[in-house]
């Protein structure tokens, strides 16, 4: 079979498997990125405005997550989360359950993304001119409304480049779940390549898919950044 027969969507081609893997990868990347944004926003506010203990604990979280390889965090968190959930279920008199790979992947990568997002968003919030926030406080704006109406929109332009990087890391980190046997794109690719011995064909095809994903996302984020900075004065440089 030639390379294009191997990549055909219908069996005996393996293109369908690759696309299913891609769907899983994108799903996990989306989930992890979203969870990371939630954790990151909370973390950034905690680091900037929280009490001493909150700040120290968040510092520990970001330091540890950024120093330990994702692969090991994935394994530790995967086993720990499964154990915890099972113990809770057993304590409530239920049966042992198997956590779905997608959920575990989202949870684990989300915690990793959260640490990086905390730092990105903290930097972006600090870049907002303090006068704007002070003015809103002086007008008696409640904190949540202040965050929603003033801080978050104003910092978005500063945060987007960092967040774009994080999204690209999220899409590539989904490949790590292949090591724990989850059927995302890289794992499907390895299975297809192993079964057909056409290693170059499949790994290059998967590489092309990841590359297209990256390029499309970069273009998308450039558009989002232009939109987020729409109110800012143009810099002539």
């Amino acid at each position, binding site marked *: 079979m030639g390379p294009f027969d191997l990549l055909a969507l219908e069996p005996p081609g393996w293109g369908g498997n690759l696309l299913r893997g891609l769907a899983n990868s994108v799903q996990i990347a989306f989930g992890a990125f979203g969870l990371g944004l939630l954790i990151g926003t909370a973390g950034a506010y905690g680091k900037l405005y929280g009490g*001493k*203990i909150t700040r*120290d*604990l968040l510092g520990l979280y970001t330091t*540890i997550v*950024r*120093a*330990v*390889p*994702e*692969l*090991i*965090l994935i*394994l*530790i968190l995967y*086993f*720990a989360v499964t154990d915890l959930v099972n113990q809770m279920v057993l304590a409530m008199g239920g049966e042992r359950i198997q956590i779905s790979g997608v959920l575990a992947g989202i949870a684990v990568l989300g915690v990793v993304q959260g640490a990086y997002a905390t730092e990105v968003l903290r930097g972006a919030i600090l870049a907002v001119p303090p006068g704007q926030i002070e003015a809103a406080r002086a007008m008696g704006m409640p904190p949540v409304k202040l965050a929603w109406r003033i801080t978050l929109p104003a910092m978005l332009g500063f945060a987007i480049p960092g967040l774009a990087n994080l999204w*690209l890391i999220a899409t*590539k*980190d*989904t*490949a*790590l779940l*292949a*090591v724990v046997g989850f059927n995302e794109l*890289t794992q499907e*690719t*390895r299975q297809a*390549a192993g079964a057909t*011995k056409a*290693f*170059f064909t499949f*790994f*290059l095809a*998967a*590489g092309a898919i*990841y*590359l297209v*994903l*990256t*390029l499309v996302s970069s273009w998308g984020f450039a558009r989002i950044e232009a939109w987020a900075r729409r109110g800012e004065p143009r810099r002539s440089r």
Partner: protein
Amino acid sequence: MRGIWEPHRLVLAAIGAGLVIWCAVSLRWDWIPQYAGEMAQGVWRTIWLLVLSVAIGMTLAIPLGLAQAAGPWWLAAPARAFCTVVRGTPLLLQIWLLYYGLGTLFPQYPWIRNSDLWPILRQAWPYALLALSLSYAGYEGEVMRGAFKSVPPGQLEAARAMGVPRFTLFRRIWLPQAVQRVLPTLGGETVLQMKATPLVATITVVEIYEVASQVRRELLITYEPLLLLAAVYMALAGVIVLIFRWLENRVPQKRA
């Protein structure tokens, strides 16, 4: 690091110490003496994979960055394409492409199998080192592009006006200033590179992560080797941060 003796920090430190003691007492650590030799070898292998791949990667990244920052288009375009491809695909995929792809391609050629290099090419580590080096080169090529561009043009013009030869200008003026500007970034990237090394365990390179996996397989324990691994990598990350801080402080600079 001011105020390390504040009361809440002492309480946190006490809780942390308590956790460590609890781990030491209630988890299983009796396997450590038995595997100590293999673990030391694994750490050593991780370290030299890291050091060599950073050295090779940086050697490649400098021309890649220079080509993009100041080269003619027929050098800049391929350099940019290389950086985009490396940064746009997962490292795990690159490692597997090189190992499984080249690994099945080479044996088909008898002259490669009969060459003196074959005993080396038959092993897994050359592919691991190649993949890690190319990855570092791709990311750092992009960093160096910005670095070369950020050196004030007046510096280069002054050197040219003094008649400094082109290579001396590069070696004595352009490169040092460019590298110094991006040292903090390079430090962060080197930590990321360290975090990428366990991926080579998937192509049978026995570094510290693979040793820990062996312990987990043979003794059927889950957490202990992983926790030890996390500690080892955190220590390595600390060392990298210290080395780069030392490098940064070697050059006095004006700070606002």
